[in-house]
């Protein structure tokens, strides 16, 4: 078991809404060589849950264990083992993708030779080789997203946390992104991704956690969810769970 999340909660406060739980008692696990998807509508608490696991936000309560390490007690150790792609992340517009990857790779403690090799592989797999030396300001949305992913996992982490990885990508780019994620699974990585697209969840995820209003409504493979709800299509499963 790579990552185990137990009763994770995060409380938010907004002037207009008052207090509410953005993540409410969320528990799930992600195994090695598995793609686990958090599926939910906008504002369901996917990003908050992922941010808390990635140690960017402090949890209100709960626990996360990554390969025996308590993520919240030892965030420095946990960060070495995970790569996090946030859905809202930006790039340094005045730097080139190569410079960005070098910067993050070196900050993650990689040596020059390993880093160059890794950049080459990532650029080839994610298909942005020809833009490696162009400033990010001029890149398309899709290429920027690919560079963001490469930046998140440049240090080759064991756990990849991807928050809506195919946002803003066209069909071809989405396909190559999916291939990339599947390849990572083959390498034995644990992948935790969030999405609001039923299609993506159906195509990619080995197991799915359906989340709404900060709460996990159901967890299981597509087959298990079908049996649980008696519906066949993921869309129908989702609607029946949310309405219930």
């Amino acid at each position, binding site marked *: 078991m790579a990552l185990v999340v137990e009763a994770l909660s995060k409380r938010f406060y907004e002037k207009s809404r008052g207090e509410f739980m953005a993540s409410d008692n969320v528990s799930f696990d992600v195994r090695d060589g598995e793609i686990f998807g958090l599926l939910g509508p906008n504002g369901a608490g996917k990003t908050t849950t992922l941010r808390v696991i990635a140690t960017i936000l402090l949890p209100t309560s709960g626990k996360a264990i990554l390969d025996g390490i308590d993520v919240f007690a030892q965030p420095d150790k946990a960060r070495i083992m995970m790569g996090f792609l946030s859905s809202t992340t930006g790039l*340094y517009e005045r*730097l080139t993708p190569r410079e960005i990857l070098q910067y993050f790779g070196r*900050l993650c403690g990689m040596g020059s030779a390993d880093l160059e090799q890794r950049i080459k592989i990532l650029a080839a797999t994610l298909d942005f080789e020809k833009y490696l030396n162009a400033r990010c300001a001029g890149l398309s949305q899709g290429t920027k997203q690919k560079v963001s992913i490469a930046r998140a996992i440049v240090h080759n982490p064991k756990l990849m946390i991807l928050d809506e990885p195919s946002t803003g990508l066209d069909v071809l780019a989405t396909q190559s992104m999916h291939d990339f994620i599947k390849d990572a699974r083959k390498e034995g990585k644990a992948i935790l991704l969030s999405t609001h697209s039923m299609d993506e969840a159906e195509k990619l995820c080995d197991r799915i956690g359906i989340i709404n209003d900060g709460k996990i409504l159901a967890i299981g493979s597509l087959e298990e969810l079908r049996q649980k709800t008696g519906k066949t299509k993921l869309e129908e499963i989702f609607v029946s769970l949310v309405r219930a």
Partner: protein
Amino acid sequence: MRLEPVKLVFFKEFVEAVRDYRTVIPMVFMSLALGPLLVLILPKIALIQGKAIIMDTYRVAQVGDSQLVAAEVKNAPDFKFVDIGSMSPQLAVDKGLVDAAIVIPSNFDQSLESNFKKVDKVDIVYNGTRSKSGMARLRLSMWWDGLNQRFLQRRIKHAGINIEQPPNVAMKEISPESPFGVTTPFMQLMLAAILMMMALMGVVYPALDAITGERERQTLEPLLMTHAERSELFAGKLLTVASTSYISVLLTLLSFFVCQFLQPWIYGQHTFLQDSFPFKAVFPWPCFLFTGLAMLPLCVTLAASALMFSSYAKTIQQGQGYFLPLMLLGLVPLLVVLLGNVHLNASVCAVPFLNCIVAFNDVLSGYIDFFWLIVSTLISVAFCFLAILLVSPQLAREDLLFGVTDSPARRFAANDYRRELLFLCALIFLLMFYGSQVLVLNYHLWGVALTQILIVLMPALIFVRYWLRLPLTTVIKVSAPRGGLATFFSMILMVPLTITTASACVYLQSQLLPGTDALNEVMAKTLGIGSEPLMLLIFVVGILPGICEEILFRGVVLSFLPSKYSQTRLVIIVGTLFGAFHMSILRFLPTAAMGALLTFVRLRCGSIWPAMILHCLHNSFSVVLTRYMSSDFSSGGAVYFFAGGLAIGLLGLCLFIRATR
């Protein structure tokens, strides 16, 4: 802190900065343009302007009949006398027919001829809103002074008295030969102001971009996910911002240095190069070198301050608002330094920021004290380390990154009123700075009473009762103290301890820092310690601050700091705030120590009364001692005074600790 990540962040930030025209234009082009502009072009404009002023003739009307004045008028080449007929001089000046008019009283000539008769005044009419008219008035009055001198000599001659002319004054300027220092004071003033401006300009945009920009563009989140520590990220950014500022300063210095050689070449051996013309640029290379070195601590300090400001901003727009105080922070000490003839000494060295400005201004004026220069540099380095330690955790603040915050109700339940307290402290400090000084200077002793009631007590009470709507008695802790009567008795015994400690602080300070004695004298004089009735003094300086300041600091401020803080932390925070509240570097140490002790007393016994009594007694006894005792501690009696005071005081402290156990 590891060096490798700091280096990485520095290089990346620097590359980003030099690829941004908003940084490069002020850093390189503006810096390089300033030298030629101020050393080569500005003197030319000034010369042309000066020449115009010298060559200008002024249209002047003479009103009133005087043969004597009319005869002198013919020999005055600066003025063109215009006949305005019967028009009133006011109207002629107002309509612009003449620049000024000279109104001669009737019978002027006759009065002047009769030796001992008083002559009526001569009026000069001019229009203050027109610069040329103002200039005409100046020239006319100077001309009239010369004329008066001649009239006086005529009278003396007429009276048949033979008086020798008193000697005229001859000016002789000496310029000490120094390898340091810019020769003309004007050039020094200008260079100091420009270097300060460039250092400030060099930090503003890069600092905003490095932290607030990252936050706004959402690139800070992945950066915080790397293995670099917050302090390493902050230190790398600090180095970049300091570098851009320092490059601006060095290029400005360089352009000034080079232009001094071009000045004689462009102007030829013009007369002003030999005279002490204010624009004469003489900038010896040791001065250039040392100014360059002395500017380094300033750039680093400015960078640390700028990053501090930008760390608290969510957006660049918000950050720009925060930079206004930084600008003021930079420009106010500069004005003080430039106009106040301040040099590096023990007290100036201790104030970060001010010490850097004084240091480089000293070098520019050729006054270098190497010892204090080194101490000042070390203090700047310490300030930057402190900034790194204190501010780097702000990078990951959830409320600034994502707007995630706890509700006020929950914060209040955890006794965390820090935000509200920050507002109250800012308000009281501003009121103290602007209001209290005015009140005390104008109304002396009554000013102190008004300060205590209007600035200290009222805001605290309004804050608790009407803003947070909390019960006053609970916040101020008016319950009976732990230890009962023994606690109150120990407070009386502790008074000698506080008095001797405060006196020792003041004495030590007066040996190290200049101005302590002068400050005490000014305070005693302003408050009328020696002249006002004693009971009134004890009430206003002793009892009133004891009550009001305790309600504010040991009551409101202490109660609103998070209860999770340790006792030591609370004692240090409230003590420091209490010291700073007195608005004087010279009073900081004794008042902060007193504040810390009072906080300790209040925390230990759980009630405000003992602290209030100790404060009232301390202040009242200080007043009595200042009134009736000599402040000369070098006499033999002082040793017994200190030793006795300490012994009784420590006994009181022991009793207090025992009673509240």
